[in-house]
């Protein structure tokens, strides 16, 4: 008997979906906009995340060694830095490499290059380029380096300068941290407001669709139908709206991400949203269809409730 009831409920929902073509069309349209917004925010999250990561990757702390620092002590310091949990990468640049890099950077600046040639010898010390896992961790890394610097009481310190203590470098790091954090918080707020608004609009559309059936619900009550038997077909209808709207949204994203893929790949930290979409299609499918189905079922469930009170 339960199977029979389920069959009847499903049939009634599908019939109502097809017979109320205009209401179904309008509901699907509004729901598609909602699900599209949800999808866009998913993509925006990926792009923003990668762009912020790219920005964060630009931050580093440089340790400049004295010109006469022995290589084994510098490599020793590199190893102890790598052992720190906050550090993600340490790059060692020997004096020669530092000079080559300096020349490369100033290849169009003849004046500097000729001044360098005048000197005859390499004026640069070796450099350690330290990258932290998070911008906020540079402070403790710099503190560690400072300790190393002052601990070398036996001989002169091999560290000439730590650029974290340059006011300009420090300010830039702090600013970068502030910008990335604010961008993250702002995006979260915008996404939350956007999703809530479109969900509310969808919710209201379904409520209006069911409002137009309120007399029908009353009649069903009066001919002896139980609450569940009345409510369930509306929920089936809501789920169908969600399913169709979800499929349309997933379909729209295919050409859209293909079209935008190249641009996002070049501009935002190398994420091509088309390949990202294809590689994570199952994830998008679950979120978009899941949101649609859940929204349709919940909105219908709640909207019918108020008319069942007779």
């Amino acid at each position, binding site marked *: 008997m339960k199977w029979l009831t389920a069959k009847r409920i499903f049939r009634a929902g599908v019939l109502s979906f097809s017979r109320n073509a205009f209401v179904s069309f309008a509901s699907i349209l509004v729901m598609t906009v909602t699900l599209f917004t949800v999808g866009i925010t998913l993509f925006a999250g990926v792009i923003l995340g990668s762009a912020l990561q790219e920005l964060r990757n630009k931050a580093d702390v440089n340790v400049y060694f004295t010109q006469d620092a022995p290589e084994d002590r510098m490599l020793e310091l590199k190893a102890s830095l790598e052992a720190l949990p906050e550090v993600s990468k340490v790059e060692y640049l020997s004096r020669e490499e530092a000079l080559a890099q300096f020349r490369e950077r100033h290849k169009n600046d003849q004046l500097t290059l000729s001044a360098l040639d005048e000197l005859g010898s390499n004026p640069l010390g070796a450099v350690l380029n330290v990258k932290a896992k998070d911008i906020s961790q540079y402070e403790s890394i710099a503190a560690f380096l400072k300790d190393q610097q002052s601990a070398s009481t036996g001989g002169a310190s091999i560290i000439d300068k730590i650029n974290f203590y340059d006011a300009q470098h420090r300010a830039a790091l702090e600013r970068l941290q502030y910008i990335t954090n604010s961008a993250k918080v702002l995006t979260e707020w915008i996404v939350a407001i956007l999703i809530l608004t479109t969900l509310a609009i969808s919710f209201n559309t379904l409520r209006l669709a069911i409002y137009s059936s309120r007399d029908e619900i009353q*009649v069903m009550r*009066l001919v*002896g139908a139980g609450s569940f038997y009345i409510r369930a077909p509306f929920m089936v209808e809501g789920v169908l709206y969600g399913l169709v709207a979800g499929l349309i949204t997933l379909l729209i994203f295919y050409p859209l991400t293909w079209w935008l893929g190249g641009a996002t790949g070049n501009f935002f930290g190398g994420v091509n949203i088309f390949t990202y979409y294809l590689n994570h299609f199952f994830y998008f499918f679950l979120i978009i269809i899941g949101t649609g189905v859940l929204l349709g079922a919940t909105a219908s469930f709640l909207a019918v409730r108020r008319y069942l009170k007779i």
Partner: protein
Amino acid sequence: MIYFDRVSKIYADNSVALEDVSFSVEPGEFISVVGHSGAGKTTLVKMLLAEERPTTGSVFFESINVHEIPLSKVCDLRRKIGTVFQDFRLLPNKTAYENIAFAMEAAGRAEAEIRSDVPHVLELVDLGDKINNFPHELSGGEQQRVAIARAIVNQPDVIVADEPTGNLDPVNTFEVVQILKKINDLGTTILLTTHNKGVIDNLKKRVITMDRGKVIRDDKEGKYIL
């Protein structure tokens, strides 16, 4: 079978819809409730169907106090009472067949029963050829006959017809009343509310006359006297 025990209904604005109404209906009776518009006839029907609660008094159906039934169980009561309304109240997106089948499905009847009973009951109200028509494709009289078919298909103990001829022409009115009489002859109790004098005078059945929420007459073989 049905017992109204000193039922009053006073709305929030102090307007009185029913005042101290008491009467009982025996099984198999055909009882008409007459009165001008606003006399309280529809409120009476709503009380019986548990659509509205009385301010004081009780309504009993087969010794059960209708207003003590929890909302989740009200559907069981309504399946025992077939209802016909002035405005037909058919489901607009369902065909004549589906409208009647819906009442049977709601009562949990089997598919085979539905397939055999629905065409049969539509034949009874002379609409065998309109089985797949939607309500908007039917005339008022035809819609009301579908509503009657829906009301009787679950073989309820009582049919409540609230102004069933209010929107019909004399020919359709006559037909609807004839169908109700036929159903009553087969043993079903009928509670009819109307303000159609012709219908009442021809019926020659029990008539309760209401005025401003009160029962002013209860005649065994009554006429429309107001």
